[in-house]
């Protein structure tokens, strides 16, 4: 069985919001649109988005670290938002595991959004139906695009390639390898929702420096250091002469 998903690399996400705007641009004009914007230049701009980037500060000054955190529907394998829907509008596709809302069936009761622990769904105040990330199902199979562009808009737009897309059930896919080898994890695993989307953690490249790396034990210079009494020991270099 296929389960398409995103894997988001928090180590390289710079919080530029390119995925947010490209998601909105693609989807507002695609089959999932329009996505409303109210007072975009006013005091309290608001609107419908399928994807948001949040920012967290971890630690206390001066030992702080900034984490940019993109958040969209995780296309959970045990999606709690699906069985609660009274109309069947909220559904999970068998063929690729994408969780979608059928706008023509939705009655706008918002019950599914109560059942999603991640707050991944947003009610469209103008169209009066529930909306969420579609995993760009109208791009990824679109024969009008060249093969290389049959990917979600947010994945294509990310300047640091922080977003990977693929089948997490195929053990050899890029996303599965990334999850396996780079410590991919799920959000709030304690709820048992089995999110298909995974996140790759922040990683630091540290070098462990030992004292021996800095001071050579048998340093020949120490033999010739006229400021101190020189050693009578034989050094490695004496053998080489």
């Amino acid at each position, binding site marked *: 069985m296929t389960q398409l998903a995103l894997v988001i690399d928090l180590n390289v996400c710079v919080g530029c919001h390119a995925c947010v705007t490209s998601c909105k641009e693609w989807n507002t004009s695609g089959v999932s649109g329009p996505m409303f914007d109210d007072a975009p230049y006013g005091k*309290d701009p608001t609107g419908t*988005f399928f994807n948001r980037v949040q920012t967290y500060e971890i630690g206390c000054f001066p030992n702080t670290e900034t984490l940019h955190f993109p958040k969209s529907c995780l296309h959970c394998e045990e999606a*709690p938002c699906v069985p609660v829907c*009274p*109309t069947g509008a909220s559904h999970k596709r068998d063929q690729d595991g994408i969780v979608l809302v059928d706008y023509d069936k939705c009655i706008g*009761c918002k*019950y599914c959004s109560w059942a999603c622990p991640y*707050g991944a769904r947003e009610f469209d105040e103008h169209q009066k139906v529930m909306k969420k990330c579609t995993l760009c199902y109208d791009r990824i199979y679109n024969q009008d695009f060249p093969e290389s562009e049959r990917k979600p808009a947010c994945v294509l737009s990310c300047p640091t390639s922080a977003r990977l897309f693929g089948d997490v059930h195929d053990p050899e896919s890029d996303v599965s390898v990334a999850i396996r080898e780079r410590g991919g994890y799920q*959000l709030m695993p304690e709820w048992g929702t089995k999110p298909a989307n995974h996140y790759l953690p922040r990683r630091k490249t540290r070098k462990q420096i030992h004292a021996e790396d800095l001071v050579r034990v048998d340093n020949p210079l120490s033999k010739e250091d006229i400021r101190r009494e020189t050693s009578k020991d034989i050094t490695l270099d004496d053998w080489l002469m």
Partner: protein
Amino acid sequence: MHPAFSVIFLTTLIGVGQGMFLAVFTGESYAAVHLLPGQDSSAFYALGTAVALAFMVLGLFAAVFHLGKPSYFITRAWRGITQWRTSWLSRELIMLPLTMFLVFLYAVFHYFGWGKDLAVPPTLVLGSITTAAVFGLFLATGMIYASLKFIREWYCSLTVINYVLLGGASGFTLAAAFSAYQAPELVTFYAIWAMIITAAGLVTRGASLIRNARIKPIATMQSAIGVRHTHIQQKSMGMMGGSYNTREYFHHKTRAFLKSVKWIFLVLAFAAPLALLALGQGGNVELLLAAFGVQYVGLLFERWFFFAQANHPQNLYYQTV
């Protein structure tokens, strides 16, 4: 959660209607075994059931405004009955009109006095079926909330019990006031039952208040973003002017406001009606009507608090609201 007035009115109004029907049918079944004096079919049973039905119709009317657009009631709401296998909301959407239809039938049988001279009057059979439907509806309404395991305040059998007892209490209080007009010899019976159910409701609602005050969240900031650190501070929520996430899941009121609503409903829904019922059980119409009015308003506060108190785990991602 943000308390929606459509749902507050829906759940309280159908609760009154369901409780009132149970009260009327209790009267009929007690009379069938000669524990209570029988009443006139149309003036008491049919009229009382019609009052119950009126409350349920009002509740249904309120529910229409919970839909995205009221027009969905005509065009799409029928789809809501299709997912009864998995969705408690779908089950409620089935049980509500079904119960209303049965209540209506029961009233019609009484109004025309059909089969009332038979050994087993059809109204008793119909009433028993309707009673089962009323409890089924209570169960569906309560389970809509009690089945959401992420919302810890609701995920508890007390949620369902409270819906049954609070609906029953307001219905029996209304029945006490109604019988003061139509059947004075039943006033004490209904008033005493109303007091018993109200007191029971106070116990279970109080128990859920105590439970919720000690509740421990399961999800944490650490598991929400997957970072192991004791100090995580949100700097940006991804938007400036708010979104559905900041509107739907927060009540935007102060802690003090919430606390005062709690005391208001404890007084209005429980203490005051208990006192008024005790004073009015002799048949004082004004006191009994006041008891119902006060209790209903108290239940509006109670329902508001029920929603506002629920803390959704998605709020972990919205710390700077």
